[in-house]
């Protein structure tokens, strides 16, 4: 795996320079105070996005370090926040200290959480909001646990790249929710692939063949915006579609197996067969993406959310000296060929490891910044979606520089339009920004 590129992050680093040249401000250059290094000071955390994943991440943060205290929570809806709090209190009764005046509701709840004297924030809202939340968190000098994906559109990706660079400059920890990167068996397996255990990687096929996510029936009194927010994974402006929201895990594993190389272009086939009607929003239910690399490698990703079909979440990596199959669901991690191997070690909970490493870094005064690869993996997923929606072959540069921006006209619990399902051959990827 040495032929794909030189430094793994070369292309993205060039992008950083381009992005930050226009966006850097003096305020970004202040280093974060390392008040917690080596000490037992309380670490105050805030939760932004109180759904099932956010609640889970908060428990893992609480379990990661005995001095972590949850002090503020934010969500769009009071019922979601209180349900989360009800589950968190018994988990750590003495360290969940979120009085009513630190429970924030609404589109600006994230700002209020950031103002609540927190050291670390957990960003687990629907992904549309991530670029703005991440930017505000880094601007405010907070360490961040940032769930995947990091953005839903190209404009959001560029904004995240700015935040990644600012986090680096300010020595803030930025840990991503691409959880497989924190899974011991995956780390051991992909390290071997990157070290050449199957020779040069010539192709990767990753899969995320799953069943659909449920729906919340529309209720009287819900505005269109509230209905969409409560069913966010069905609306592309909120989720980025399921290839970006869910299957990005498996696209990240292409990125990992390819040792961080950036694809040159992608073509894709996708559509919507099982999901019908406005109640299921405007996302697809299946994608097949072909990523082409400069050295001729071709990588494939297939995903679907359909019931009663064969399920799979295996990654198949093909090299000149062997093959590797990684089934994270099984779990099994097997290399066949010249260097046969299978993972026999421990399986620590990867969701817990994410937080253990984040809080250990804060304690030790070291810095984790997952920004480079987490942003590229998100962009790869968006590239695949662009190619599927448009029916065109889309280059990396065309996708990365696209003016695509799915921000709604207003963040209000009122009307919000739902664009029609993208029709290949008719949908146009927005042109590059000037």
């Amino acid at each position: 795996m040495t032929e794909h590129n030189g430094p793994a992050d070369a292309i993205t680093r060039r992008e950083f320079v381009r992005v930050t040249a226009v966006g850097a401000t003096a305020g970004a250059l202040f280093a974060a105070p390392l008040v917690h290094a080596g000490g037992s000071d309380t670490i105050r955390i805030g939760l932004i996005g109180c759904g099932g994943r956010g609640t889970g991440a908060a428990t893992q943060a609480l379990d990661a370090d005995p001095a972590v205290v949850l002090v503020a929570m934010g969500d769009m809806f009071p019922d979601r926040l209180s349900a989360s709090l009800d589950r968190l209190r018994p988990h750590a009764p003495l360290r969940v200290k979120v009085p009513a005046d630190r429970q924030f509701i609404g589109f600006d709840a994230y700002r209020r959480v950031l103002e609540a004297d927190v050291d670390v924030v957990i960003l687990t809202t629907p992904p549309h909001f991530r670029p703005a939340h991440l930017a505000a968190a880094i601007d405010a000098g907070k360490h961040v646990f940032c769930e995947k994906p990091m953005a839903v559109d190209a404009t959001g990706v560029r904004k995240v790249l700015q935040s990644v660079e600012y986090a680096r400059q300010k020595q803030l920890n930025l840990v991503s929710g691409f959880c497989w990167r924190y899974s011991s068996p995956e780390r051991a397996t992909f390290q071997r692939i990157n070290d050449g255990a199957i020779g040069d990687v010539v192709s990767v096929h990753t899969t995320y063949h799953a069943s659909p996510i449920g729906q919340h029936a529309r209720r009287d009194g819900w505005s269109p915006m509230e209905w969409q927010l409560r069913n966010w994974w069905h609306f592309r402006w909120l989720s980025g579609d399921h290839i970006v929201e869910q299957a990005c895990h498996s696209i990240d594993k292409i990125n990992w197996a390819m040792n961080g190389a950036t694809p040159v272009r992608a073509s894709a086939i996708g559509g919507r067969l099982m999901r019908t009607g406005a109640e299921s929003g405007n996302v697809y239910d299946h994608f097949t993406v072909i990523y082409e690399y400069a050295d001729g490698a071709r990588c494939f990703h297939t995903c679907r959310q359909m019931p009663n079909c064969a399920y799979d979440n295996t990654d198949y990596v093909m090299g000149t000296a062997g093959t590797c199959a990684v089934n994270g669901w099984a779990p099994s991690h097997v290399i066949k060929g010249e260097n046969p191997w299978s993972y026999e070690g421990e399986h620590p909970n990867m969701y817990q490891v994410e937080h253990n490493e984040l809080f250990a870094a804060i304690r030790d005064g070291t810095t984790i910044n997952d920004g480079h690869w987490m942003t590229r993996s998100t962009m790869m997923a968006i590239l695949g979606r662009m190619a599927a929606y448009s029916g065109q072959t889309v280059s990396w540069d065309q996708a990365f520089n696209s003016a695509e921006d799915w921000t709604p006209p207003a963040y209000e619990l009122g009307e919000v339009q739902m664009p029609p399902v993208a029709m290949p051959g008719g949908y146009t990827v927005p042109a590059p920004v000037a």
Partner: protein
Amino acid sequence: MLVTSCAQSDRITAPPVSAANAQFTETIDGTAVAFTMIPVPGDPAHGDEPFWIGRTEVTWDAYDVFVYGLDARGDDTAADAVTQPSKPYISMDRGFGHAGYAVLSVSDQGAMAFCAWLSRKTDRRYRLPTEAEWRFACDLGRIPPAEVGRYAWYRGNADFKTHAVGTREADAAGLHDMYGNASEWCTGTDGLPVTLGGSYRDSMEGLGCAARVSPSAAWNQSDPQIPRSVWWLADAGFVGFRVVCESDSQAGEQR
């Protein structure tokens, strides 16, 4: 949880008379699901009653009917008696296969709820095997130690996955996959749930009638959502179960 999880119905009926000391085929109305129950004589040394045990591990074909209410009577009548599992977070068949494959990743609560549901649907008394019943049936199988590979999907031949039930040879008792494939929930001699037989992940040494593993917190640690599911085990993609059906005399005591 003890073996009393089966439905306390006054409509309980024994297996068909023709099935006395013979296998019978169980069905679920309104579905194509059918599976074979094998008679096992009681252990005379301990005065145990005879019973029937599934020829194979319970497959998704039957479990999906329970989870998704796919039978003729659907959700409504089942829900009044038995709480149905939630939809799993990931695909609990782990991508190994579905139709004809052993149920995986179910909690003991899910397995027992299935038995209660099945009892309602069939008017027979289904439950998990007790540890003694399972081991007695397993011992009757007399799998030769030198030929385990003919009878079991295990680490040495399974290629890191389960396989369709009944695709290895039946043992001398007519049962498939008592060794390997999915390990199987039973009610332990201490009344606590336990898994027996070993699974596709185990080496030869981890298989057998005495292979016994108690559940641990590690079997359900990586469900990323809170609350965690009580029905599905995020990290135990090797645990399934088979059912037993109580005999005429046992059922008769309930009349």
